[in-house]
């Protein structure tokens, strides 16, 4: 990490993300091309995954905190940060946010360690009946979400992930051939559909 690009991201509790600041952030992430907010959403997803891989208990909040700090810096700099490309600058800020988070949790008493040592705490807490109910609800949600997909997407997703090992590979090859696309292209398509389905199920289970 270069010294030049070290961000001025000290926590300013009174700063709030305003609509113009948010628009500036979107424009800066797009770098001149209007992605209709897709770049922002993708960066937020990547940041949340980054914090989740670091076992932070609130990855979404930390992703938002990172993007807020970037937006504030953009406001200070007049809408552009020249030292780094947007994604790299976001990473630098995310590292700072992570280290701050780590310091706070260490102060609070080794919460991170506790999380690592009790990976199934939530599962164990749930009684057998609750677990069954939860599974049932998830399956219902899955069926609902599957029915909302376009028929081709539904067929792809149900056929792509069926089977094990060699059988799975053969099925995927046959499906790709049927669709007239490469297996790689099929993987991308299936992965996207699954992401969509997973988000739908998560939302449905949360609402239930």
């Amino acid at each position, binding site marked *: 990490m270069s010294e030049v690009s070290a961000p001025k991201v000290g926590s300013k509790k009174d700063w709030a993300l305003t609509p113009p600041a948010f628009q500036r952030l979107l424009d800066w992430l*797009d770098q001149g*091309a209007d*992605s209709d907010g*897709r*770049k922002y959403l*993708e*960066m937020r997803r*990547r*940041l*949340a*995954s*980054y914090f*989740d*891989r670091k*076992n932070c*208990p609130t*990855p979404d909040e930390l992703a938002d905190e990172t993007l807020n700090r970037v937006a504030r810096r953009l406001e200070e700099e007049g809408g552009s940060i020249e030292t780094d*490309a947007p*994604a*790299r600058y*976001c*990473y630098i800020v*995310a*590292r700072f946010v992570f280290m701050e988070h780590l310091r706070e949790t260490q102060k609070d008493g080794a919460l991170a360690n506790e*999380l*690592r040592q009790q*990976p*199934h705490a*939530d*599962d164990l807490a749930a009684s057998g009946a609750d677990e069954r109910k*939860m*599974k049932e609800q*998830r*399956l219902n949600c*899955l*069926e609902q979400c*599957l029915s909302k997909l376009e028929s081709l997407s539904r067929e792809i997703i*149900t056929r792509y*992930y*069926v*089977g*094990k*090992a060699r059988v799975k590979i053969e099925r995927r090859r046959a499906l790709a*051939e049927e669709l*007239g*696309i*490469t297996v*790689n*292209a099929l*993987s*991308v398509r299936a*992965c996207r559909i*699954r*992401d969509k*389905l*997973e988000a739908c*199920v*998560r939302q449905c289970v949360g609402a239930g």
Partner: protein
Amino acid sequence: MSKQLYDDQTLTQYLLDSLSEAETERLDELSLTDDEIAEALQFVEQDLVDAYVQDELTEATRAQFKSHYLASPLRREKVAFAQAFHAHAEKSLAAQQAAEAQTEAAAEVAPKRKGQSWFSAWRGFNASRPAWAWGAAVAALALLVAGSWLTFERVRPRQQTAQTQRDATRQREQESQKESENQPTAPAQSAEERTRAERERLAQEQAQREQQRTAEQPRAAEQQRAASQRQSPSDASRLAFFVFAPQMRGASQARTISIPSQTAYVAVRLNLEPNEFSTYHVALLDEAGGQTLWRSSRLKARAAGGGQVLNLSFRARLLRPQTRYVLRVTGGAAEIVDDYPFRVVR
């Protein structure tokens, strides 16, 4: 470390927190800054979760998965989704297979009944007419022997794997012929029995040959299909190749391309105008309806003739004659780089 070194195995180790600190830090950065790595991580993570759910991980990886991956509620949620999803998929598959098995069983029952009634009728015919049964049986045998011989001769080139069986059949047929020559001196009852036995044996052999041929058909078809697939991309007669230059700004003239009727694949080289992108997607659009008929995977441009080109190919059957299409090149987050309109004639 170059990012090319990050194969699926390394990415899996990264997700399981098994890499060195330096490698982890490098991948932390790339997971945010590099589109390809970010995408690959998603694939690898799905595969990893699926492998856990389907019990395909090694013991060591499974232990690492449990101790690290399952430490996060968000990731446990991914596992729960995968469990539900696979349970649903397996259920659908089982239902589909049961329906197929039922259809097959129904199809098998009909010819079997037909065969049984034919054979029973033949036996009944002999039993009810003892006086001239012997003569009829000999005539039937002669016909069967001749028929089998002709069938045997006709299918020989295609039935090499059944050679041994056929040799045995021929030997028996020759024996039968000799026997039939001696028939007038043999008692009527034993000739009838021999004829019936011979008929049964021939019917059995015929059924065995049928069964073997049926079993071999899908495999032969699969081999033929695989061979044709291997040949398709390199078979010059089935490949039509075109080079498309970027359109002049403001021009709306679509290029006309002629595709011979036997063409299986259309290969296209797109000459790109200078731009800032390193990777691209190309979509084939039906110009009238704007419908996407085909979409490439992520493509990298190659340097050629002082500029950059994209090479791609798709199935010719996607194109209809007298129809206008557009090959749309996009870069980055789906930004349109250029359109290559064309019209097809056959």
